[in-house]
């Protein structure tokens, strides 16, 4: 092999390695955006609206289940990270567009950590969902460090469910509402505890293990 060939091969390999390294770093550092709810007046309650969809419908993982967050301007953002002020009432609305199933652990069928340990489903208060009856539980919104966990009642799997986010209320949906007080400043993990990562071992890979889909953070600002 001539010297020119060796140099050429070396340069190409180096370039490939450099590109691979850049792609890897960009992917590792890439974080879903943060929706900011801290601009409201001091001490005022903050309304946070999310939706859960069975398939995101586009992007690099169109078949993955996902949460989305509605920003203060009313635009749906594909993220699971949002920021709220400390020590204020957080009113959460989750519009669930996904079907349900029995829970792996019915312990997660309870509402915990909200005001009165109660939430509302389509306007009716509830404390427990029997995941083995009706449409089952689609997902949970759980923040273990704060003891918060709310099961999201599923839609009928035979219905014509929304298949591409952001979904609108013209598709079958369930509206779950609850409130809690935000803690002190910090970063609080939240996630779905239903193993809804289809095609992954125990259902906990893929979207369950990727920020921006079924788990994220509630950032609490000072």
């Amino acid at each position, binding site marked *: 092999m001539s010297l020119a060939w060796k140099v050429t091969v070396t340069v190409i390999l180096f370039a490939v390695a450099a590109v691979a390294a850049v792609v890897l770093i960009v992917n590792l550092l890439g974080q879903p955006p943060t929706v900011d709810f801290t601009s409201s007046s001091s001490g005022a309650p903050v309304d946070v609206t999310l939706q859960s969809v069975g398939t995101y419908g586009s992007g690099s993982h169109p078949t993955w289940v996902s949460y989305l967050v509605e920003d203060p301007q009313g635009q749906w953002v594909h993220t699971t990270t949002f920021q709220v002020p400390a020590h204020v009432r957080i009113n959460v609305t989750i519009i669930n567009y996904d*079907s349900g*199933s*029995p*829970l*792996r*652990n*019915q*312990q997660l*069928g*309870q509402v*915990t950590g909200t005001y009165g340990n109660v939430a509302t489903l389509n306007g009716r208060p509830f*404390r*427990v969902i*029997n*995941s*083995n*009856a009706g449409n*089952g539980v689609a997902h949970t919104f*759980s923040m*273990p*460090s704060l*003891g918060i966990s709310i099961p999201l009642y599923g839609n009928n*799997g035979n219905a014509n469910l929304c298949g591409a986010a952001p979904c609108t209320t013209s598709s079958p949906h369930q509206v779950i509402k609850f409130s809690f007080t935000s803690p002190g400043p910090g970063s609080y*993990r939240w*996630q779905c*505890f*239903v*193993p*809804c990562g*289809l*095609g*992954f*071992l*125990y*259902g*906990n*890979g893929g979207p*369950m*293990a990727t920020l921006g889909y079924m*788990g994220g953070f509630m950032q609490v600002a000072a």
Partner: protein
Amino acid sequence: MTDPGAAGPATGPDQSGEQGETHHWWRLIAIWVVLSAILDPLFYFLAGPHIPPGTMTDVAQGAQFDFNVLFVIALPVLLAVWIYLIYAFIMWRASRGGPDPVGGEAARGHLGIQVGWILVTTVVVLFLAGFGTYELVQPGGAGGGEGSSPIWTPTSKTVLPIQVIGQQWKFTYRYPTFGGFETNQLVVPNDTTIQFNVTSLDVIHSFWAYQLGVKADANPDYNNVAYATTQELGSFIVRCAELCGIWHGAMYNNGAVVTPQQFETWAKATEVRLRRNTKLLPPFALTYTPDANGADGGYYPDNVDPYSNVEQYGAPQPKGGG
């Protein structure tokens, strides 16, 4: 020509006992004995009581005692090496402009020292092996998971069973003697022997109640038993000690040792508060075989009917199903 190893400033330790020579060995031994006699009790009585994991349970106290014993034995060995090294650096260093240190009689091996060193270290290691083996299982399994049929059991006749259920990524706790309610909170009474029945609903986790001195793997379809007898009030932390997925690092919670009266009050109130959900839980069992959502170990596409309503947490498995 004189033998440089027989006299001069670079004389070795085996010169002790000769008329007019420094008694290096006696000096070394004296320094070692005095330092060991001072530092060992200082460590044992001042630092020892604060060594983790503390004394919240008998097994935690046992772990603390074991560490202290090992340290008290290891410290004189450490001192012997350090004292000899420092002494040698000071006493037998080459002086500037003086003759180079050379070998000779003083640098030759000493059979007595070699045999003595091997003998002493062998005795120490054998003792520690025996001591460690005994302490590994006493009292009552020393807080480790003993499998489903424990050999080393506590002497207490009154045992409170608590089931620890691991799942990605949290622990929950069932109290079978209080109606089988399941909660996120781990509350235990003081002066009570606890029997932790540890299992998992998915992958392998490890229940590590650090201050309780309890650590037991949580395996799916397996009941791993660990014992501890509480003896101090306070809070403790539970962590998962087995890398179990992306949120493994966040799989922890706090627990509390409370008075028996407080525990009774809490347990009865929680039993009532959670009664509606307790009815929906599967009957208490030592292990559960959740089948829904592929939790039987299969991947989703292979699961026959992951959304069947009869496949639920703890439900009996149909023959050939899953």
